[in-house]
């Protein structure tokens, strides 16, 4: 975003790109179709299901080239243009091919104050790429993102739209990258509000088991 303020240029997306997903792979299985049908049934109109369906498509194809967005829109039963508008609205939908692991480093207000840029630059130096780029081996993409809503544990980052890694330090980043190289995802950590400590074991998510109950450390430990 910082660059955008200096050079506020919006690029035109390619009007008619070559398809990236070969035609023989461009389909949803019966099971996936059934899941999308379930999403659709949850809403009064089909439009509501497009976000979840795009998510499913991104999990399946890795990213969302136009032909995948069109396929998803057709499966959900809404206009392609509308689905495309939704997909471009959210940065979590990848409109270009990303690395296996996408490292979203937050540099928004709280994280910036607590060293978000230091963390970003450390990652950039370690992986030898700039933000927005993907390593030549296709393993890592670094993105600079806006607030992910975990200011209490700044600086923080998110791995591939999944688990948060919080209270970042350079050592922690090194460990994380090594673990990801070996294919180990960081554990999901639940941020618990004091009033939720007793309920559900402090885990505020119902769809993932709590693996590490996060406790806010004293401030002195995170800010050096």
């Amino acid at each position, binding site marked *: 975003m910082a660059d955008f303020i*200096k050079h506020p240029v*919006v690029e035109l997306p390619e009007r008619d790109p070559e398809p990236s997903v070969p035609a023989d792979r461009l389909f949803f299985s019966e099971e996936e179709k059934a899941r999308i049908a379930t999403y659709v049934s949850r809403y009064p109109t089909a439009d509501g299901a497009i976000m979840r369906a795009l998510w499913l498509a991104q999990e399946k194809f890795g990213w969302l080239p136009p032909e995948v967005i069109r396929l998803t829109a057709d499966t959900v039963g809404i*206009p*392609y*243009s*509308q689905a*495309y508008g939704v997909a471009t609205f959210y940065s979590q939908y990848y409109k270009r091919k990303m690395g296996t692991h996408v490292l979203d480093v937050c540099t928004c207000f709280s994280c910036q104050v607590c060293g978000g840029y230091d963390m970003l630059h450390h990652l950039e130096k370690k992986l030898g790429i700039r933000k927005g780029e993907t390593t030549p081996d296709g393993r890592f993409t670094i993105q600079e993102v806006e607030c992910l809503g975990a200011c209490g544990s700044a600086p923080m980052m998110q791995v591939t739209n999944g688990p948060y890694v919080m209270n970042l330090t350079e050592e922690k980043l090194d460990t994380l990258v090594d673990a990801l190289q070996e294919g180990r995802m960081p554990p999901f950590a639940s941020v618990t509000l004091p009033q939720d400590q007793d309920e559900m074991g402090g885990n505020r998510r119902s769809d993932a088991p709590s693996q590490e109950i996060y406790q806010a450390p004293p401030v002195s430990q995170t800010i050096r």
Partner: protein
Amino acid sequence: MPTITIDGVAHEFEAKQALLQFCLDRGIEVPHFCYHPAMSVPANCRQCLVEVGMTEVDRETRQVKFGEDGKPIVRFLPKLQTSCSQEIADGMVVRTHRTSDLVARAQKDTLELLLINHPLDCPICDQAGHCPLQIQAYKYGPEGSRFEFEKTHKPKRIELGPRVMLDGERCINCTRCVRFTGEVSKSHQLTIIERGVRNYPMTPPGVVFDEPYSMNVIDICPVGALTSVDFRFKARVWEMSKTASITVSNAKGSNCWYWVKDNRVLKVTPRDNEQVNRYWLPDEDRLDYERFNDGRLSGPVVDGRPSSWDAAYAAAAEVLGSVEPASILFLGSAHASVEDNWLLSRLATHLGAPAPVYIPHVDPGHGDGWLRTDDRTPNARGCEALGILPIDADSVRKRLSSGAVKAVYVLEEDPIASGVFSADDLGSAPVIVHAWHTDNRTLAAAKVGLPAAMVVETIGTFVNEDGRAQRVRPAKAIKGVNRTLMMEVGKSRHDLHGTPFDRWYDETNLVDCQPGWVSLPAVAARCGLELSYRGPKDILAEIAGSNEAFRGVSYEAMGESGVRLQETAQTA
């Protein structure tokens, strides 16, 4: 009767409706961008904000409470409301920018926000002069900009489709165009992409904005973001005059404005008519204007050589007098007005020739049940109401080859190009043709060619597919003096800003032609038939008096929006 108070003035109403539309219907101006009466209400431009309150009512007695000053107590909603999405209610009190500083301030701030990233390229923008953003910025906007940074640069000069050009920077994201493709034309070819300061309307990858109604988004765009590929940079709005008329490329008779500069039609835009086309116009109607300007036959032709009007009329009368009347084929035209076809019928009757017939131009599958029709002519219905029936081409060819047809009189048609007969079929039979264009193929084979005024130069009545009789008015002048036409031109040509660029006396690009209601009586007079009318208005009065189908039809009754022929005409 329920009552709503707007700026201290009480208005009664019957049905509930949106506050903004209620104000607009009563001529109370409320600035707005995204609202359009034919589409859904997103309330996203935030320009139509007003203060809305309700008079306080005692719960027990249901009586309005009065304050110490003797006025009803009004409780205003804590925040400003968008009037486009606010439904009116009994006892509602509304303050617009006229009486509320808060509203005026909010609208000023909204404009400041909209203008942050809006390029100030009005001097080269096609929309300038009739741009809601420009007008409202002058009327309600801030005096200057406080924005010190570089404006966002979005894609410019993007051809969304073959007919519509996008300038992303000018867009204020009102979503009118997106809603048009989603709700009205249902092509779903546009969407808003990206978000925040980066967003603008776009086609998704692999989609071209080429639907047959695409150019409507140009009219509804409240800024110059969407412009016509065809019209870009041709003229400023204040250099043109506009004339209320109808389009003639199909049988729908959509209401339109013809925009004229230096006696050339440059642009066709829709004119609201709830009964016919509402706010819309198909692209085919908009792009079908060059034939009014170019390739026109100017000055009469006799035997392939330029001639004077008198000589041409005399030659035509001589042809008609030289053969036996029953062997003259009169061809009316579904392209010509009711009045001209009527005069042709009268001439044929006077001479004792068979009744005229017309050449249908039906293109099955072209129509879409909306504003495009299979019939590519504007007045087939009018011809039939006059008793002019479709031609039987086979029998005409037979009668030509057997010598039963010895002369042909053609009104604003091209039977050879239409394939009714060929130049060879004609043999030595002389042809008189009222022609528009020099490339009229019948003209090449004709003894007498009389240049005819087109729909943008004449006065007349056309009956559309649904039996609605509508007027056309002269948008551009023709060569020569015709007081009826000149008076009508003076009335029908609106100069949008009263500038002198395009007054009706502009003498460039004049075509030496005559409307049928001038040339047909001139020919008839030389055949011994006196057709003296003061103008087409009188002709229509005569038709209305003698033809049951047109009973009650007059220029006053048609007015701006036309009138339906009587039910008897529809069953006939």
